[in-house]
């Protein structure tokens, strides 16, 4: 049986070498992985091993435009990455392990990762021994095409560094893998800053915000100061926002004036009001009227569904974008502003000729970090002229749109993960 296994491994590898891309990267966007049945760890349960490998693959998927899915049914030749444990001469591999100490694992370009079963690997919950998660992330990095990187903080250092509290892929490792595979791009459903008022220990009211990107059924919190998403994102919308639709949110609006402080979510022809105290959508208002409601009822003169919307604190209007038009809604008079709708291109003209999103926006986002309005469409954004811009260049029309830029070049590493890894 051992000889038979060697043959399979050899033929499988030979076949792959013929099909494999000539360069050092996978050309596919979805990679399949599998734990080798004959190569389970003798120290960790199969469940623990699988749990660790899922986290490891997710950590890479969170920073690069590739997805990983465990596949235990397809023919072996269609599995891109195989992981297994062995000691000494193992799994038909030509590179022998050396027993406990020194070499703990190795990876082959075409996707086999072997862990030395003589080493004392541990699951994330246990800090003694060698973290299987950290080693797995390192070896997957090799399989993806990274070499060793002699830089403090890099996951690709050749030597095992006992892990501090929680290791993550730092900026340079992210850029290293993105040099090979490109950065993550793609349209968002909505983007917004969620502002909350809190009382500090001195009783003073402080205002805090977090930035969120929504897409389909999941979302990321974006840490502006760290130029990355929150570690571990994306997560499902339903796990973080209660009572609103579980996917494909069209818009979020925060009406914030001296007298109003209201949060709305829009999807299709309906809208929900969100209760930030209890972190869930209101089911009804103080008069007993239920949510969700028709947009046309709550915002007379505004037809749903909408593409995007934002609240302008200067004019105290909500601007709703629908196809090529923009509607304005006066929150104090509670009705649509006369002589709207207008064409988006007329209210938000292009600073550079023809460089304009035109119609069907994805999101309209006022950023407190950048103090500017951004219109999103596809992989790009257009920044609107701000008051600050007009101070330096009064010739710029208000709300005019600067030329498009790639979203991924201002908000970094916002990457999908495979649906099978959304929930660990």
């Amino acid at each position, binding site marked *: 049986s051992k000889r038979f296994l060697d043959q399979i491994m050899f033929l499988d590898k030979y076949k792959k070498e013929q099909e494999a891309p000539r360069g050092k990267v996978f050309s596919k966007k979805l990679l399949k992985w599998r734990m080798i049945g004959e190569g389970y760890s003798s120290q960790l349960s199969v469940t623990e091993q699988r749990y660790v490998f899922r986290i490891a693959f997710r950590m890479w998927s969170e920073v690069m435009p590739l997805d990983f899915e465990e596949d235990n049914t397809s023919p072996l030749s269609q599995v891109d990455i195989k992981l297994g444990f062995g000691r000494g001469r193992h799994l038909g591999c030509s590179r022998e392990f050396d027993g406990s100490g020194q070499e703990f694992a190795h990876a082959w370009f075409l996707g086999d990762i072997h862990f030395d079963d003589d080493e004392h690997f541990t699951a994330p919950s246990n800090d003694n021994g060698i973290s299987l998660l950290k080693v797995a992330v390192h070896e997957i990095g090799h399989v993806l095409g990274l070499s060793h990187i002699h830089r403090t903080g890099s996951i690709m250092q050749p030597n*095992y560094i006992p892990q501090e509290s929680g290791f993550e892929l730092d900026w340079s490792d992210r850029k290293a893998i993105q040099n090979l595979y490109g950065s993550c791009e793609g349209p968002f459903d909505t983007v917004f800053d969620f502002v909350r008022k809190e009382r500090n220990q001195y009783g003073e009211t402080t205002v805090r915000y*977090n930035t969120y990107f929504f897409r389909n059924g999941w979302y990321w919190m974006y840490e502006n100061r760290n130029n990355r998403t929150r570690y571990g994102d994306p997560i499902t919308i339903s796990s973080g926002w209660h009572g609103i639709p579980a996917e494909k949110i069209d818009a979020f609006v925060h009406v914030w004036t001296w007298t109003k402080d209201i949060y709305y979510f829009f999807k299709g022809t309906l809208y929900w009001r969100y209760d930030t105290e209890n972190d869930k959508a209101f089911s009804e208002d103080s008069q007993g009227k239920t949510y969700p409601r028709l947009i046309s009822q709550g915002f007379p003169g505004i037809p749903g569904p909408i593409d995007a919307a934002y609240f302008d604190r200067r004019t105290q209007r909500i601007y709703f974008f629908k196809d090529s038009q923009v509607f304005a809604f006066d929150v104090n008079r509670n009705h649509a502003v006369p002589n709207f709708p207008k064409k988006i291109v007329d209210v938000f003209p292009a600073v550079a000729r023809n460089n304009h999103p035109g119609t069907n926006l994805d999101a309209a986002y006022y950023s407190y970090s950048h103090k500017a309005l951004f219109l999103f469409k596809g992989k790009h954004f257009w920044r609107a002229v701000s008051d600050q811009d007009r101070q330096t260049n009064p010739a710029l029309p208000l709300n005019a749109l600067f030329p498009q830029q790639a979203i991924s070049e201002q908000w970094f590493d916002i990457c999908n993960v495979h649906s099978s890894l959304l929930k660990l």
Partner: protein
Amino acid sequence: EKLFHMRDHSDIEPSNIQQAQLVTDFVSAQLFLSKYGWAENVMWEDTNTKDNEHLQDIHPMEEATANSGKRSPEPTKNPHFIEALKKFQKLNNLKVTGRLDDATITAMNRPRCGVPDNQVLKNIQERPSKTENMSKTNSTKITNQVDGAPKKR
């Protein structure tokens, strides 16, 4: 000794596990440097033929170039060895002595990945200047909530 053990004794060194051969001397250091790509296919002749076979066995993929007839200089004075050692010391932030000192031996014996080191990546792009700066002048002091150190997953 520790006052208590882990209930599953996972902290007790299992005795039946084979221990890796550590780097202790010139020959083992030479094996290490060659195995992990610090020295291209260099075959440093050693008077003891058994070691030669030993070398060949461990590195079937590295062609053994016979260093026929010529006696190599005193092992640690071998220029190839010294050059490889210096490269290893430099990249591992050790004092570059070119000598097989304790610090170097310790570094060689640290747990490591089995993939050779001889491919070194170019300089990685530095973080761009576009990190946001929190304006202090804003009338309503709005701060970005940050989570601090990475939480354990």
